[in-house]
């Protein structure tokens, strides 16, 4: 995340005053990042568009609360992640516990991971294959740097559940990546 520059601060100040040109400039600069995060959390373009729209409206509505001492990109990322979580919880409220039961722990109790020659797209596909509950915890913890306590609060789950789901997500991902690696070798 880049540091706040004077130009950024000026644009944000204009956004705080409701300047729509400044809002469009901010949108143009950060919308790609926001959309990528939205897609990562929703795994569906249509849902990502909903999340994106909702997140941007929140951004402009609450931009007065943003302090220039913080990272603007980090603040935006948090908003889109939180919006995606809200969207997830709204849609998956009754399926979350099923996700936990769907996937059994892998027989291999790896602490380590052997194959990391994957492209970003391959990793994204592998992560997208994680069951939704696991995937959400994994993405929040590993990619967006949330703490287990925050994840537990955001998802409405127990702290230990968050930890165990992360552990299971890692194992699941190892298996997925291993399988992808095997297929690639055969081809």
């Amino acid at each position, binding site marked *: 995340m880049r540091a706040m520059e004077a130009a950024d601060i000026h644009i944000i100040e204009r956004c705080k005053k*409701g300047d*729509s040109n400044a*809002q*469009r400039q901010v*949108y143009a600069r950060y*919308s*790609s*990042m*926001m*959309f*990528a*995060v939205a*897609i*990562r959390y929703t795994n569906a373009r249509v849902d990502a*568009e909903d999340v*994106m*729209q909702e997140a*941007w*409206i929140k951004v*402009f*509505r609450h931009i007065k609360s943003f302090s220039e001492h913080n990272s603007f990109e980090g603040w935006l990322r948090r908003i889109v992640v939180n919006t995606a979580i809200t969207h997830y919880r709204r849609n998956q409220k009754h399926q979350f516990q099923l996700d936990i039961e769907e996937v059994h722990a892998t027989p291999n109790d790896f*602490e*380590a*991971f*052997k*194959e*990391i*020659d994957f492209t*970003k797209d391959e*990793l*994204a596909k592998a*992560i997208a294959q994680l069951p939704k509950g696991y995937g959400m915890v994994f993405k929040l*913890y*590993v*990619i967006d*740097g949330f703490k287990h306590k925050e994840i537990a609060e955001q998802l409405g789950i127990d702290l230990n559940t968050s930890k165990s789901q992360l552990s299971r997500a*890692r194992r699941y991902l190892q298996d997925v990546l291993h399988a992808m690696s095997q297929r690639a070798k055969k081809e």
Partner: protein
Amino acid sequence: MQKKMKNEEFDHYIQSQFADEAITPPQQIEGAIFAAMAKNSRRKKLGVIGTGILVLGALAYGVNGTMNTTRVVTETPPVAVPVAAPVAMPVTLEVLDQEEQPIQKQEVHDDVLPAAAAAAASASIVLEDSDAVENARPDNLEAVASRSVQPVVSNSQELPAILHETDSEVWVMPATVRVKE
């Protein structure tokens, strides 16, 4: 690459892969976002105008209410005063000093005593006949003021001091009155 990787390293590797992720959103999203923003803005302005109207209405109502309340307050004291002050005292004066002003005592007695008896039961009687009470009040006060007898000051807080001054008599107001003949 074939090597063992711990969880932290793996996490770091994944995180680095997604650090600069960017996917261009569809064009129509921008239009939808800013259309929604404009709609919210219009709604907000209407809300502000509506709130302003409500506040002004409430203020106008409040001012009107305050004026009404003030009028009521100004009317209230005359109702309360006759019940407290002159009611009991003319009785005392009448009994203590019949020779001095018999006519006035009689007038006071006629006007005020029924009100005094009734006031204990119901204040509404005083309200209904408030004009009469108000008219009677200055006369009573004049009559009281003309007296040289100490107990004319019927204020309940001053009464104990007065009772101390009259050594030979013990007054328990208003139930029992000892009359000097």
